[in-house]
C-alpha cells in the first residue's frame, strides 16, 4: 500500500506538476479510502458464494454474510490508515479540527458500502458473471472518480459538474476524505451520502427479506 502510494504520488505528481508535499497526503488518503471501497465491493459480490456451506446448513440472518466481508475489510482499512500519520508528518501537513468530521464521514461511507454489498451479494449468487462485471466497473470508476486527481482540475464547465455530481462514489469519498485533509465536505456531499445510505439500506434489507428463502437454492 505504501509502495503504491509512493509510486502514484511520484508519477501523477510529475505529470500534473503538483507540489508533492500537498499531493502526497491527498493521494495517500484517497488510495487508502478507495481501496477499502473497491475491495469491499469486489469481495461483497462473493459474500454468499463463499459461505455456501453455512448457508445450506444453517438458517442465519442473511445480512450476516455481507457484514462478515465488510468487517474483514474494515479491519484491513484500520491497519492501512496507520500510514496516514506518517505521510502527514513527512509532508508537513497539519491536521485541523475538521478531522472530527471524519467519524460521521467514514460511518456514512461504511453504511453505503453495506447496502451496495448486500445488493451485489444477492445478484452475484444468482448471476455468476456479476463479480467480473463489477470488477471491471470498479476499474473504470477509479478513473472517473477523483482518486488520483484533484476534483478542481476538471474545471468549472457544466459537463464536469455533471460528471462529479452524478457520481455517488465521488460524494461518498468526499465525506470521508476532506475532513482528514483539513477541509469541509459540502452540504451537497453530506445530503447525497446520507440520503443514499438511508434509501439504500431500506431497499437492500427489503430485497434481502424477499430473497431470504431463495439464496440457498441458487448456491
Amino acid at each position, binding site marked *: 500500500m505504501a509502495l503504491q502510494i509512493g509510486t502514484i504520488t511520484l508519477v501523477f505528481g510529475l505529470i500534473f506538476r503538483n507540489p508533492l508535499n500537498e499531493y502526497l497526503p491527498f493521494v495517500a488518503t484517497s488510495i487508502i479510502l478507495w481501496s477499502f471501497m473497491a475491495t469491499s465491493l469486489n469481495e461483497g459480490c462473493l459474500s454468499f458464494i463463499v459461505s455456501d456451506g453455512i448457508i445450506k*446448513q*444453517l438458517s442465519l440472518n442473511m445480512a450476516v454474510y455481507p457484514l462478515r466481508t465488510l468487517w474483514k475489510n474494515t479491519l484491513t482499512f484500520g491497519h492501512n490508515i496507520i500510514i496516514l500519520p506518517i505521510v502527514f508528518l513527512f509532508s508537513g501537513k497539519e491536521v485541523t479540527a475538521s478531522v472530527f468530521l471524519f467519524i460521521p464521514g467514514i460511518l456514512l461511507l461504511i453504511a453505503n458500502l453495506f447496502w451496495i454489498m448486500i445488493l451485489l451479494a444477492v445478484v452475484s449468487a*444468482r*448471476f*455468476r458473471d456479476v463479480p467480473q462485471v463489477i470488477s471491471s466497473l470498479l476499474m473504470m470508476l477509479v478513473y472517473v472518480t477523483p482518486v488520483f486527481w484533484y476534483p478542481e482540475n476538471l474545471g468549472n464547465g457544466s459537463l464536469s459538474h455533471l460528471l462529479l455530481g452524478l457520481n455517488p462514489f465521488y460524494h461518498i469519498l468526499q465525506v470521508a476524505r476532506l475532513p482528514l485533509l483539513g477541509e469541509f465536505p459540502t452540504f451537497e456531499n453530506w445530503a447525497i451520502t446520507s440520503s443514499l445510505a438511508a434509501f439504500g439500506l431500506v431497499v437492500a434489507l427489503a430485497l434481502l427479506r424477499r430473497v431470504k428463502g431463495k439464496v*440457498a*437454492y441458487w448456491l
Partner: protein
Amino acid sequence: MALEKKIEVVLNHVEVAIPIFNANGRSLTSRLLEVATGGVLDADPKGKVIVTALQDVSLTLRPGDRLGIIGHNGAGKSTLLRIIGGVYHPTSGDARISGKVNSLIDINLGINPEATGLENIYVRGALLGLNKKQVASKIQDITEFSELGDFLQMPVRTYSSGMQLRLAFAVSTIVRPEILIMDEWLSVGDAAFQAKAEIRLAELLESTQILVLASHSRKLLESVCNRIIWLEHGKIKDQGPVAEVLSRYFD
C-alpha cells in the same frame, strides 16, 4: 411459571422446486443479450431446469418424536432435512418450525484450517448461536472431551483427520437443541473415542425433544426412531411405525 414454548414441526403440503441453472442461466450478460436480440441469438438463453425435489409432503412432529427418513439416493431426504432446518423455504405449501434447531449434517462446517483449534471453537460456537462467554465456559469441556490438549493452540491444518473430527464432534455437540437433525450417524475416531462419542450422542438424543434422522441403516433406525417416513421421488411413499415401514422397505 412462564408459559412453556411450544416445540413442533408442521409441514403442510410442502413442495420444493429447485431451479438448476446452467452456465447460460447464471450469466447476466447472456440474459441481457437475450433481451437485446429478442432471444434469437442464444440457443437456450434461460438454461433453466426445475427439479422437483419434494412434492406434497405433509407431516407434524411433536416432542418425543424420533423420525427416521429412508429412501434411495436422490429421493429427497437431504432436501427434507434442509426444510426442517429452515435452510430451504418451501416453494409452495408451508413449513412452520418452532424450537431451537441444530443440525449435525456436516460437523466440519465453518472450520478454518488456517486458524487454531481454539479459534475454530469460537467460530463454530458462534455459528451454533453461542456468545463468547458461553463458548469460554465450554472450552474446558471441549478440551477434555476431544483429548487435544495443547494441540488446540496449533492451526487445524496440522491436525490428522481423526483429530479434526474429534474437535468438530466435541464442539458440535456442546449445544442441546430442541430439534436435532442428523444425516446418518456420526462415527468418529478410534475405538476408545468412539465409545465416548456414542455416550455423548446418546445424551444428546436424550435431551432433544424432536429428532430427525436420515439413514440407510436398518439397525440404527430400529434402535433410535419411533416413526419412519419413506420418501420416493420426493413424495412420501409410506409412513408409520418403525417395524412395519422398515420391513416393507427392506424386504
